[in-house]
């Protein structure tokens, strides 16, 4: 059988965190993470206006995101890197735009899909892939963050599960509109992620695992989920 690589290859060698190439790529990846956490904070606060009876819980989730953001800002300082925030704002703008439109129209289902499912699943995948190749400082911070992100994904999942029958159509439409954007974001960041030794293939697969799990928990069937998720694979 043509499989001769050493098992030691399973344990990825760490990148050199001090090279200009690493720092350059990190300035964008780190900015994406910081911007993502900031937007997540803002989005949960906004969601509180659409679901007033849960505004307090959503504010609690939002506070966690701000704490994460500060942690990742410290990661940049630790590596002596300046996060490229204009790049990150641009990176998130299509998804940010769709969230704002849905918010203005009072579409809570679309807002939850974008923030609590797509962005959280994206974050969970990225953090899991990053942790084994992170510098020791960032690794510790990220390990703490990733567990919180599951809480956030779970929030959206439970709300949508409880409201599936009235949400189903809007969820499918929102999925069609927004999942291709996530795929584009993954493609856009693939080069920089590779410098950090994070593989695009694994990022996509891990993202889909988290996203599909959430859809299954909400109540979609395997075939529905595969159909919905395919938009992220086709690219």
């Amino acid at each position: 059988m043509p499989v001769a690589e050493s098992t030691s290859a399973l344990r990825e060698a760490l990148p050199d965190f001090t090279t200009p190439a690493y720092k350059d790529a990190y300035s964008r990846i780190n900015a994406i993470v910081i911007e993502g956490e900031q937007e997540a904070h803002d989005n949960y606060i906004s969601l509180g206006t659409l679901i007033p009876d849960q505004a307090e819980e959503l504010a609690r989730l939002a506070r966690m995101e701000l704490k994460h953001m500060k942690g990742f800002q410290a990661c940049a300082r630790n590596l002596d890197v300046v996060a490229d925030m204009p790049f990150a704002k641009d990176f998130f703008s299509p998804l940010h735009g769709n969230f704002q439109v849905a918010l203005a129209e009072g579409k809570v289902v679309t807002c939850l899909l974008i923030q609590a499912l797509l962005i959280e699943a994206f974050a969970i995948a990225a953090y899991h892939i990053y942790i084994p190749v992170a510098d020791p400082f960032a690794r510790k911070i990220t390990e703490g963050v990733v567990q919180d992100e599951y809480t956030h994904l779970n929030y959206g999942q439970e709300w949508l599960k409880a409201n599936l029958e009235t949400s189903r159509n809007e969820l499918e439409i929102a999925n069609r509109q927004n999942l291709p954007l996530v795929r584009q974001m993954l493609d856009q960041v693939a080069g920089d992620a590779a410098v950090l030794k994070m593989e695009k293939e694994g990022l996509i697969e891990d993202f889909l695992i988290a996203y599909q799990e959430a859809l299954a928990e909400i109540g979609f069937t395997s075939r529905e989920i595969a159909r919905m998720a395919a938009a992220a694979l086709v690219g």
Partner: protein
Amino acid sequence: MFGLIGHSSNFEEARQKARNLGYDDYAEGDLDMWCSAPPQLLERLSLTSPSGTTIEGAYIDSCFVPEMLSRFKTATRKVLNAMELAQKQGLAITALGGFTSIIFENFDLAKVQQIRSTTLDWERFTTGNTHTAWVICRQLEVNAPLLGIDLARAKVAVVGATGDIGSAVCRWLQNKTGVGELLLVARHQQRLLDLQTALGSGRILALEEALPEADVVVWVASLPQSLEIDWRTLKTPCLMIDGGYPKNLDSKVNAQGIHVLKGGIVEFFTDIDWQMLEVADMENPKRQMFACFAEAILLEFEGWHTNFSWGRNRITTQTMEQIGAASGRHGFKPLGLDPAGILSLAGVVL
């Protein structure tokens, strides 16, 4: 609840399967897309044994295809992600089918127990190799005499003798069947010497030396595409049991008196209502399946929720007997030679 982790035999088959199951985007996707595709729980099924016990299970496709073997990270990710899905679905015992267990073993994936937030519990998985080894041995014991081969005098070549299944087959043939002589063929010389010492018998030979001498050949190694067998040098009759993966020996040997039997395949006593193996290369997909899959089913029937087959070269004749008895109890039978083939041989002899 039991689980089966499987995959398609090749990429084209995978796309066809996806099309048949209504996964159109997958059917149209290229190999790169499949490399990023997460495992899918494709089917839930139930089986009732002859005694009336009913069990439930699930089939998971890892979305791995053999074309990914050269992509080391992809292949390992597919296996581990499928195992994680099985565990998260609460499957008590899951068989690693096809290349899944080979990849797990060859890359020593037991060292990678943490998959994201899940710690894999090895007790929930089995390679199914004990049942596969037992089925191959029974296929040999039942079918060789039908071809007029006297096992007490027969030379039996085991190709892949030092592997998990191969070494178990050797021990059984030595201690239980009592064949004339074992011809041991494998790539690793030291492992061959160790096996010979442990068995206290057996002759170590190169493949091209062993084949012309053998009355029975048990293949439990994957055959390289480039392998060519000169059938004119083989004995007749000769029983070849194709226990490797993938099962492609019949494409390499096609001559009168040479009988190729798909090894490590069992047949259930009644039809099973499942779609998945209909697209696999089985003659009777409603009843036939890989013995490794059947092992998970047997463990569930028996309530033996443990990694019955795990690690390398730990299979004993006792565990083979134990799983073999369960196999019979729950309605499984090792696949036999096509009766038409045996009759044509009889015609030649007469």
